[in-house]
């Protein structure tokens, strides 16, 4: 709990203690003994006012502020009108007093709100903890020493130094050094890009292997990452924000109740149907009875349960309004790399020439790549089951951007792409599989190729099946990757639609197009910086937390901690269950209210039924709300 919530809790506890003390004094006749018959009523009025104001003074202030700003009829107004109505019954000393109810409703409301605020705050903190909040910086050389400066301070044409593991802060041209760049977060392209002097680097890529000296070609504000973040801002302006459920509910319910109470109090006496005092009392009674005490506590509690339950599944929700939006999702749009696929490389096939043992091809390739730390080399070494005997390797040289040439067991081994084969005059043939193809030649003779590809996540197929089963009509994949790769993944996973070779801006356009045709809400699932604008634009943005970039986690509304796409269907399940419970409680609470109102009007309901109406419904609604927590 934060400072504010602790203060809030203390206030509620204090108010509760006073409330029960006053109640005891009242019930056991202490007040009546001290103040006499009419005096006791006024004394209890004054005493109940204390816990009421301690617990609810901020709600009253907020209602007043909102009225002044012309935004009446929210939940604070509903609470204010109903509770003040309850206290106003003091003007009719002969009727059943309602002060205790007024104070209790306010207390209930505050307890529910505190719970909800706690759940949202906890969820938010878990998400924030996943992001490394290290500020962006650029290294520049000053008097022979490297210093970190704000990227805003770097002028165009300055030389910055990017160390391995660091993010490229500003777009530029490499003047010195060579390295592999991880561009996955930016372009969705999973194969690292090789850069050397003269090559262009764009901000947001991660420098993986070597130190680069880069002459900047753009100021920070015009660099790729800054431009993408601008896209995020533009997208957020277009997004229709879902208001908190209880605010929307109050906006409809409050005016109905208030005007109905007003009508009851004013209209009949005006047309001469009875005394003013009578009808004003009836109007007040109506106002008090109609205040949905069970609702104001059970709605926030249901969301508390839903958010808490989801977080135990590794699904972090940034707010209760997003849980509601998620319940109405009927279209789910996926990014490919890192979302449906694992975003790492794996050997998916070894195609040896006739008469060659595939294990031999892999073993020779693994030895040739022994000294390379390129991600492709790492995946080959991982796929090789034996251990690498360095004594067998006489010599190994990397041919930049093409592959490696090594001498293993006194054979000349070439491992690399078609350009390497062509450069050494070796024949090769292409593969029907999609992915990165590594050709292997030994002593000038082609022995086969190894196919390396980004593999589809284990639970991706299940995820799409679950989503379809949950009534999601369309599952769409958007990717910056090549058409054939996209087609292969889409058909494997049974996706309804896919669009390939998209730039970040294109993705927003595609999502906007799909948004126009979707009936329900659209959820977008992604993990890269390039996904941030789309995550913002979609009705519900879902980011991958473990692999995802900070920008994506920040832009998203929901974060999946373990990167499992199958959790999306589960999250929708939790959201739907929560909303179902919320609606059940509303129907139940209002239904019982109306029933009691009718019975009371007919003279059938007595005091005890009314008590059940208030407390009983509240307890049942709370128990029902707690179900949202079980997942």
């Amino acid at each position, binding site marked *: 709990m*934060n*400072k*504010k919530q602790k203060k809030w809790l203390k206030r509620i506890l204090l108010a509760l203690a006073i409330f029960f003390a006053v109640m005891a004094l009242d019930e056991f006749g202490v007040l009546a003994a001290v103040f006499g018959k009419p005096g006791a009523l006024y004394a209890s009025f004054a005493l109940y006012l204390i816990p009421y104001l301690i617990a609810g003074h*901020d709600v009253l*202030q*907020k209602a007043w*502020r909102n009225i002044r700003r012309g935004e009446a009829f929210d939940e604070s107004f509903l609470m204010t009108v109903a509770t003040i109505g309850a206290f106003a019954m003091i003007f009719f000393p002969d009727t059943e007093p309602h002060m205790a109810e007024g104070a209790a409703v306010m207390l209930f409301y505050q307890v529910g709100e505190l719970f909800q*605020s706690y759940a*949202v*705050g906890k969820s*938010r903190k878990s*998400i*924030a903890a996943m*992001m490394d*909040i290290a500020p962006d910086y650029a290294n520049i050389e000053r008097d022979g020493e490297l210093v970190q400066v704000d990227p805003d301070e770097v002028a165009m044409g300055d030389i910055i130094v990017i160390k391995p593991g660091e993010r490229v802060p500003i777009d530029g041209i490499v003047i010195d050094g060579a390295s592999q760049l991880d561009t996955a977060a930016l372009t969705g392209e999973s194969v690292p890009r090789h850069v050397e002097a003269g090559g262009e680097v764009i901000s947001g890529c991660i420098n993986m292997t070597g130190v680069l000296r880069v002459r900047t070609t753009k100021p920070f504000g015009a660099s790729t990452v800054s431009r993408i973040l601008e896209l995020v*801002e533009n997208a957020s302006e277009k997004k229709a*924000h*879902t*208001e*908190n459920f209880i*605010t929307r509910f109050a906006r409809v319910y409050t005016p109905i109740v208030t005007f109905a109470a007003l009508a009851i109090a004013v209209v009949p006496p005006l047309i001469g149907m009875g005394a003013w005092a009578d009808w004003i009392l009836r109007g007040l009674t109506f106002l008090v009875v109609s205040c949905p005490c069970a609702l104001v506590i059970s709605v926030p509690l249901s969301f508390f349960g839903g958010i808490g339950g989801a977080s135990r599944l590794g699904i972090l929700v*940034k*707010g*209760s*309004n*997003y849980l509601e939006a998620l319940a109405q999702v009927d279209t789910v749009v996926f990014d490919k790399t890192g979302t449906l696929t694992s975003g790492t490389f794996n050997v998916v096939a070894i195609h040896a020439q006739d008469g060659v043992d595939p294990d031999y091809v892999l073993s020779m390739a693994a030895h040739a790549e022994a000294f390379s730390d390129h991600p492709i080399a790492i995946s080959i070494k991982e796929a090789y089951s034996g251990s690498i005997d360095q004594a067998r390797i006489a010599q190994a040289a990397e041919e930049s951007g093409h592959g490696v040439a090594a001498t293993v067991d006194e054979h000349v081994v070439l491992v690399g792409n078609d350009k390497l084969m062509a450069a050494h005059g070796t024949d090769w043939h292409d593969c029907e599989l999609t992915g990165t193809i590594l050709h292997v030649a030994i002593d000038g003779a082609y022995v086969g190729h190894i196919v390396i590809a980004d593999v589809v996540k284990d639970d991706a197929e299940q995820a799409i099946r679950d989503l379809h089963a949950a009534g999601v009509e369309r599952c769409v994949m958007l990717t910056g990757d090549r058409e054939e790769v996209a087609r292969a993944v889409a058909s494997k996973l049974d996706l309804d639609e896919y669009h390939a070779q998209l730039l970040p801006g294109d993705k927003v356009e595609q999502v906007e197009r799909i948004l126009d045709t979707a009936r329900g809400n659209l959820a977008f699932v992604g993990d890269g910086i390039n996904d941030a604008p789309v995550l913002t634009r979609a009705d519900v943005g879902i980011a991958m937390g473990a692999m995802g970039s900070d920008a994506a*986690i*920040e832009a998203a*509304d929901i974060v999946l901690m373990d990167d499992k796409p199958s959790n999306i269907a589960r999250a929708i399940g939790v959201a739907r269950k929560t909303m179902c419970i919320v609606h059940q409680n509303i129907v139940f609470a209002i239904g019982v209210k109306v029933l009691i109102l009718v019975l009371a009007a007919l003279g059938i309901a007595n005091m005890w039924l009314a008590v059940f109406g208030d407390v009983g419904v509240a307890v049942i609604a709370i128990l029902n709300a707690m179900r949202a927590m079980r997942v």
Partner: protein
Amino acid sequence: MRKVFKLDEIDCAVCAGKLEDAIKKLDGVQGAKINFLTQKLTLEADDDNFDAVLDAVVKLTAEIEPDCEILR
């Protein structure tokens, strides 16, 4: 000038959105962005009267979200 301030503490994403919209409408504010997740307010205004604008923003915040404080 663009400056980032920490907020202590904005409770829900909707409240953050409302406050952001209100700040954007203030005179002298060129741009405002509230990040609910990181609890940060990014404010953009003219260098010359930045402090005056900031004062107005603080006052507005106290009015709309009395429990939220801008730490400067």
